[in-house]
């Protein structure tokens, strides 16, 4: 269902922002391509072409294995992350949410329009800049290596990946009560697999349970798979259909969870860390466990004689202190 008033409201809130994003994307992608093939010393261009001729698979190398697209994706990710903060987090404090909820539209429809704006921004910026790149490449010295498959693969992959991250940031915004915690929780979610794996592995190994721990090879594989931020800078050669499937699943799950949470939004809890009690409890437990493990590992390094005892003391102390702190923080209301 299309509601022009809701679209207009979302567009008005982030108008300037929407105009800048495609420009910044161009600076990261099209301009860099032009820099490499048009605005560089012809001697270097000729050298690059010579190198490409000697390669068995020159197309990915001609496109620098997608490094310009990766930089573009990083900028776009930053843009849609900020957009998600503006659309969900800041509206809790600036009266915008109350205005929207008083309008004669269901909250699911409101959420859908928010998401559509972000998706349109991504699709628009990616389409425009892919098109520019597809004009730049055939007219450049690298034209023999022009590949429409490459451009369309990058377009599809970037769109899916960024839409999934954007939707995840929106979903996190629907369960957190403030911009600050939406920022923190989104970053933690994106980075969690990097830190959580080593934390658990080290904790288990200290207790001699390394045998029952996941073997390190599979562990690292799992850690890499779950680390969403890694996909932003993934080389063109490393793209796979499995990743596409995983990202698509993430997008769908985050979208429906976000829509459901937004529909059940408890406006009276705005300003709290988390606006749903069940989520608040789950996040609190995760934070307490992670913090306790970090403190335990730090403490184990201080007790050289008995690292395990050092870990246990640190873990228990961390558990008590962080539980107390989290309980206190959960009762506060934040203005940012």
């Amino acid at each position, binding site marked *: 269902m299309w509601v*022009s*008033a809701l679209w*207009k*409201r979302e567009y*008005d*809130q982030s108008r300037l922002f929407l105009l800048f994003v495609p420009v910044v994307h161009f600076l990261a992608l099209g301009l860099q391509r032009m820099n490499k093939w048009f605005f560089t010393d012809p001697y270097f261009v000729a050298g690059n072409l010579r190198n490409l001729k000697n390669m068995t698979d020159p197309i990915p190398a001609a496109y620098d294995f997608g490094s310009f697209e990766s930089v573009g994706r990083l900028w776009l990710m930053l843009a849609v992350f900020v957009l998600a903060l503006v659309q969900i987090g800041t509206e809790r404090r*600036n*009266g*915008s*949410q*109350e*205005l*929207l*909820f*008083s*309008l*004669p*539209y*269901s*909250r699911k429809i409101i959420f859908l329009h928010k998401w559509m704006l972000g998706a349109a921004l991504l699709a628009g910026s990616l389409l425009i800049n892919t098109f520019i790149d597809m004009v730049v490449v055939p007219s450049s010295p690298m034209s023999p290596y022009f590949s429409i498959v490459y451009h369309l693969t990058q377009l599809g992959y970037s769109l899916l990946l960024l839409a999934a991250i954007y939707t995840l940031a929106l979903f996190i915004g629907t369960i957190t009560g403030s911009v600050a915690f939406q920022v923190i929780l989104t970053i933690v979610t994106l980075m969690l697999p990097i830190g959580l794996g080593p934390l658990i592995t080290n904790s288990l190994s200290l207790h001699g349970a390394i045998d029952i721990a996941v073997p390190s090879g599979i562990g690292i594989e799992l850690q890499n798979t779950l680390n969403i931020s890694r996909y932003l800078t993934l080389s063109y050669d490393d793209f796979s259909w499995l990743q596409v499937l995983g990202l698509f699943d993430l997008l769908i799950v985050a979208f429906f969870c976000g829509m459901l949470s937004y529909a*059940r939004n*408890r*406006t*009276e809890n705005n300003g709290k860390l988390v606006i749903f009690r069940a989520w608040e409890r789950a996040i609190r437990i995760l934070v307490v466990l992670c913090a306790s493990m970090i403190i335990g590992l730090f403490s184990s390094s201080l007790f050289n004689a008995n690292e395990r005892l050092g870990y246990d003391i640190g873990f228990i102390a961390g558990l008590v202190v962080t539980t107390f702190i989290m309980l206190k923080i959960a009762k506060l209301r934040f203005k940012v």
Partner: protein
Amino acid sequence: MLTVRNLHKAIDRRPVLKQVEFAVAPGLVAGLIGRNGAGKTTLLKTMAGIIDPDHGTVEYEGQSVHRHPSLKREIVFVPDNPEGWFGYTAWGCADLYAQVYPRFDMAYFKDTMRRFGLPVDRNIRHFSKGMRMMFSTALGLSTKARYVLLDEPTNGVDPIAKKQVLSLLMEAAAEGVSLVISSHLLEELERMTDTILLMKDGAVETHTSEDVAGGRVMKLQVVFAGEAPEMWLEGRHVRVLENIGRVYTLLLNTEPGSAAYEELQGMEPLLMEPLPVKLDDLYVWKLGGETDVG
């Protein structure tokens, strides 16, 4: 008909609305009164679908506003601060509302803005507090929705503008718009409303504006023969509004279970003259003894 049925809402485990029940018939004006923090804004926001109730329903023509948000085309909420419109000009707001509310009257909006002397091309953020309230009221009434819920519409408005706002509301009521007005301006509410919704301890008592006492309280001017009965005057069924010399102005509970009036008659005072019970008397009677406003 806008009907509130058995509404419950707790915030931070503290009950704010408890078994709230009332109805506002089409074309009627209801005044919502209560101490600061009594839950008036929570009630209005719940009626507008901004806050979800824990139990109970808000129904428009028999259908739940929360289940059928499209019904809110007929229910407009005017908050006490239009901060959601910051960044917009008055024109921008009207343009957006015109797309939302099918009967939005742009000519009326322009005319009202001109009448209030408000610039239509200035950002709402740069309006003074009073100007914001005047703008919000004009915008809300321009929707021509059947019910307009106003949260302290005269908050921060200067006396001249206050008269303008109130006369605008009266004109809207005369045209058949139902208004629910939360305010502390008891005199004005008494004049312009049909019904008074009094909030106390999370519940709402309904009083008709023509007879706010409703047989539940009596106001008397009394001169006692001899010494004033201090113990009786401090009783829970009696409230002393004023005492000048030997003349006492009293409010007496006349609800079943109270014998205050009979007790007074038994004292055979020198003077016992009934006075009309006004809304501020009811307010003091119902809410005046509390120091806990939360």
